[in-house]
């Protein structure tokens, strides 16, 4: 909240114009760098042009941020995505919360990696600069049509901005986009390096240079992806991390391909193979991301994506399509043109034999990952494919993605489990098997513990058929998981347990090997740590989604909702419903005294037609081994009036009783005042009410006021309940009563999600492992400053390449 603006609104129009000029300058400088690279100018000169273009982008970005921080609502983009009451962090995040700003973010993140990696490109510098600058020039082109620096039309009210979409307003908008876009920026560097390697006709030197950056890209995109999952989990209220949405897939596919590159480089270094494959694997992630961007932003997905994006400016979309198709065609043509040369100069790759050795595993793993990437990429293109074939649109749903990708996923876990124990030289099955005795024993033990935990009768949650049940509550046999798109059903709990067992096996294998190698090989530890983190995350995802339990009900002061051994009671709100930080307090209490207070966010903003629009923010109570995930939803609001609901009309004969929540009602009999059928006649129905506090008497009535007009008051009976006489059936003498909630009664969704902690921990470990790997690879990089000295430093096989196999002779 900043009531006093730093600078008057409208004062920095000139600065915004400068931003526009800087984008234009970035485009021109980049074009000059492209031209210079073609004309074979001095690489230092073209490099300076590229850096100058990047600095222009940085300047434009800084200006846009200044405009946001100082509330310059005369700019349309600032007006749309910020407002006076936004905290500073949201004003900063406003920069990338819309279409234009996210393109600018892509531009500067790419530029950052361009500027950093340019110094390390050695002999490839000329080609690298040209390719990189061409990309930046195209982005400058997009940004001149999709400019965040356009002014609002003259005369538009600019006292306050429209504000960021409330669904975006949380800390993830501050950190998730910059992280993942830095990853996307690094993909540009990988692409430019691959192109340069082909142009400069050297497919060996570049892998040493690109290696740490491929790890950085892998880690940034991976961490960014997971942050997106956390965002969904923490805010959306459906309790999951991942749903195969096209926007998620747009980042998932490049991530998978970079993972292939990272492993492909191992093969190239050790076996002198896979040169072309690695070039392709380095170029593809950028192209895949570009394609995904086109798909999600172009409107081709139409209504089939959950995310709705604003329509892009037509010219900007044209440049985007031109950029991506040019990048694809150029990549293909460059490879095709290099092939004749490569056939002449291809080194004799080292042969390998046997299935139980590193090359076979890396190779198979890469293929499985590529399979995953390919089916995901195809799946998200299905709406496009269908519309190109002129058929009705279709979408690939979560279940289908899960079915298809599991064919690659399960073998991948096996590879990650066995991989760490392999060497480049093949070993016999018996030798390998011996190394897994301890791991297998540990896995069996852990699965046994889990199984006991699942079937343990003292717990309040049951997990389907595996559960024997516990006193008073029989086991629920209904939980089945459909396999192969419904071909057959398996009981959920044993299936989840089997997958978890497989993952645990891989976890223990990596952990054990990590300790063995802690002293001898640092580089392999980074990799194993990353694998450990990935598998741990997957274990958490499988377990928490597969065995999640859900309870839906209503919370109101007059009742207690039983949920997972707790009794939930609502205790009011922390603020008013128009406050973005408003929380509904729900007390969860166990009979043994264990309790916690869930504070689940609920507030309203005015929607399109002025009707209030609900916003929720789940409360997540982390326990050691499980989360209780609480979403308090809104009551019904009709015509601006809240309707908290209540009972159906209940017909009672005199002397009959009814119960609602903890209240018992007894109808005492009808008393009529006035002449029935004339106006002013009153039908009184005295009712005795037994409340938790004691007994009381109330008299609801119906009074005829005029034609079709009646007085039917809601009589307060305490605890937020009201009793109303609905009607009296003259034939049967039954009186129909309605019990109303007179204070908010909230629909509530409560999830029990076991082992979600694994997801968070796993992502953290994966990130650390990834950066650690990048760091170690960075130290081993030979970096000749001048191209001429490059050829003399023939990259030798680094000692750590084989360090994980000390007993084996160095083969390369």
């Amino acid at each position, binding site marked *: 909240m900043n009531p006093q603006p730093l600078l008057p609104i409208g004062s920095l129009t000139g600065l915004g114009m400068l931003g526009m000029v800087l984008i234009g300058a970035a485009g021109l400088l980049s074009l000059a760098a492209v031209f210079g690279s073609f004309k074979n100018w001095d690489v230092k000169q073209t490099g300076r042009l590229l850096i100058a273009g990047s600095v222009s982008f940085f300047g434009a970005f800084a200006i846009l941020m200044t405009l946001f921080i100082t509330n310059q609502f005369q700019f349309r983009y600032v*007006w749309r995505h910020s407002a006076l009451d936004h905290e500073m962090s949201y004003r900063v995040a406003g920069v990338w919360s819309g279409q234009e700003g996210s393109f600018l973010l892509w531009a500067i993140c790419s530029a950052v990696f361009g500027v950093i990696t340019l110094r390390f490109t050695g002999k490839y510098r000329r080609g690298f600069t040209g390719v990189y600058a061409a990309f930046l020039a195209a982005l400058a082109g997009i940004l001149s049509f999709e400019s965040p620096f356009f002014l609002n039309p003259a005369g538009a009210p600019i006292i306050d901005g429209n504000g960021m979409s409330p669904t975006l307003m949380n800390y993830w908008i501050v950190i998730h986009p910059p992280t993942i876009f830095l990853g996307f920026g690094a993909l540009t560097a990988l692409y430019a390096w691959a192109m340069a390697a082909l142009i400069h006709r050297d497919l060996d030197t570049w892998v040493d240079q690109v290696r740490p950056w491929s790890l950085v890209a892998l880690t940034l995109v991976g961490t960014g992806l997971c942050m997106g999952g956390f965002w969904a989990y923490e805010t959306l209220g459906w309790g999951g991390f991942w749903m195969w949405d096209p926007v998620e897939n747009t980042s998932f596919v490049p991530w998978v391909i970079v993972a292939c590159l990272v492993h492909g480089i191992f093969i190239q270094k050790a076996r002198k193979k896979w040169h072309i494959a690695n070039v392709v694997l380095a170029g593809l992630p950028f192209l895949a991301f570009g394609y995904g961007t086109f798909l999600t932003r172009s409107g081709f997905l139409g209504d089939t994506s959950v995310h709705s994006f604003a329509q892009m400016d037509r010219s900007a979309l044209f440049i985007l399509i031109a950029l991506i198709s040019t990048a694809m065609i150029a990549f293909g043509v460059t490879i095709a043109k290099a092939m004749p040369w490569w056939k002449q100069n291809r080194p004799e790759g080292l042969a390998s034999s046997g299935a139980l050795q590193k090359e076979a595993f890396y190779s198979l793993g890469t293929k499985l990952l590529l399979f995953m990437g390919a089916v995901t990429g195809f799946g998200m293109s299905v709406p496009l494919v269908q519309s190109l074939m002129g058929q009705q649109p279709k979408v690939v749903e979560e279940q289908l993605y899960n079915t298809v990708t599991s064919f690659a996923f399960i073998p991948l876990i096996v590879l990650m489990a066995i991989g760490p124990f392999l060497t480049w030289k093949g070993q016999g099955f018996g030798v390998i098997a011996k190394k897994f005795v301890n791991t297998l024993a540990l896995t069996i033990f852990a699965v046994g513990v889990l199984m006991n935990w699942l079937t343990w009768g003292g717990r309040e949650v049951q997990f389907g058929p595996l559960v024997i049940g516990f006193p008073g509550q029989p086991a629920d046999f209904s939980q089945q998981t459909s396999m192969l798109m419904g071909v057959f059903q398996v009981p959920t709990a044993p299936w989840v347990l089997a997958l978890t067992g497989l993952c645990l096996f891989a976890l223990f294998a990596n952990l054990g090997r990590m300790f063995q190698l802690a002293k001898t090989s640092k580089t392999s530890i980074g990799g194993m740590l990353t694998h450990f983190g990935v598998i741990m995350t997957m274990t958490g995802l499988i377990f928490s989604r597969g065995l999640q339990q859900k309870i839906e009900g209503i919370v109101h002061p007059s009742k207690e909702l039983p949920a997972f051994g707790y009794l939930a009671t609502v205790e009011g709100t922390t603020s008013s419903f128009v406050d973005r930080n408003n929380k509904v307090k729900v007390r969860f209490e166990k009979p043994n005294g264990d309790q916690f207070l869930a504070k689940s966010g609920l507030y309203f903003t005015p929607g399109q037609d002025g*009707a209030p629009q609900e916003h929720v923010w789940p409360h997540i109570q982390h326990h050691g081994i499980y989360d209780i995930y609480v979403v308090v939803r809104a009551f019904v609001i009709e015509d601006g009036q809240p309707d908290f609901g209540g009972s159906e009309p209940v017909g009672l004969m005199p002397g009959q009783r009814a119960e609602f929540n903890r209240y018992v009602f007894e109808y005492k009999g009808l008393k009529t005042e006035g002449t029935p059928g004339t106006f002013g006649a009153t039908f009184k129905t005295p009712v005795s009410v037994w409340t938790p506090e004691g007994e009381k008497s109330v008299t609801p009535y119906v009074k005829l006021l005029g034609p079709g007009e009646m007085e039917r008051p809601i009589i307060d009976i305490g605890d937020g309940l009201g009793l109303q006489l609905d009607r009296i059936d003259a034939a049967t003498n039954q009186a129909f009563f309605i019990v109303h909630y007179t204070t908010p009664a909230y629909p509530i969704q409560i999830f029990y999600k076991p082992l979600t902690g694994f997801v968070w921990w796993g992502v953290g470990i994966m990130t650390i492992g990834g950066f650690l790997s990048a760091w170690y690879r960075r130290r081993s990089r030979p970096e000749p400053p001048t191209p001429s000295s490059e050829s003399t430093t023939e990259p030798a096989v680094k000692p750590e390449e084989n360090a994980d196999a000390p007993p084996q002779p160095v083969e390369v």
Partner: protein
Amino acid sequence: MHGIKMKIRPLLGAAVSVSVLCGVAMMMLSNASPYVTAAQAKTTKGNNLHLQGDLIKESVKVDHQNMQVSFTIKDDEGQMLDVVHKGLPPANMGDATRVVAVGGMQGGTFTSHKLITKCPSKYESEPGKHPESVKIDQS
């Protein structure tokens, strides 16, 4: 002999992977969930049909006791169809103009297990249309 073998292996590998990928692609296409109109929904079997259309605002009825929402969809051919959604409505239902109900016909109504809402985001609107602030009291 050896030379032929050297040439055939990569070709064979490529053929196998292409056919696997094509097979998977065909399988995904045929198993993908179709978008249907009201008329098609009535004649198509399945529980993953995506019924898409305009939401008739006045028809929305939220039933918190039974945890379900009922409403009417007007599809792009102008046909109306009643929908019952099992579960609470999505948080932005109040603002939605178009919805996609995922489910299938059960008797005369379309029963959905998943609702996707499309909101004409006010956050892309032009200045001058700034909505009034919301008035809801907590009582």
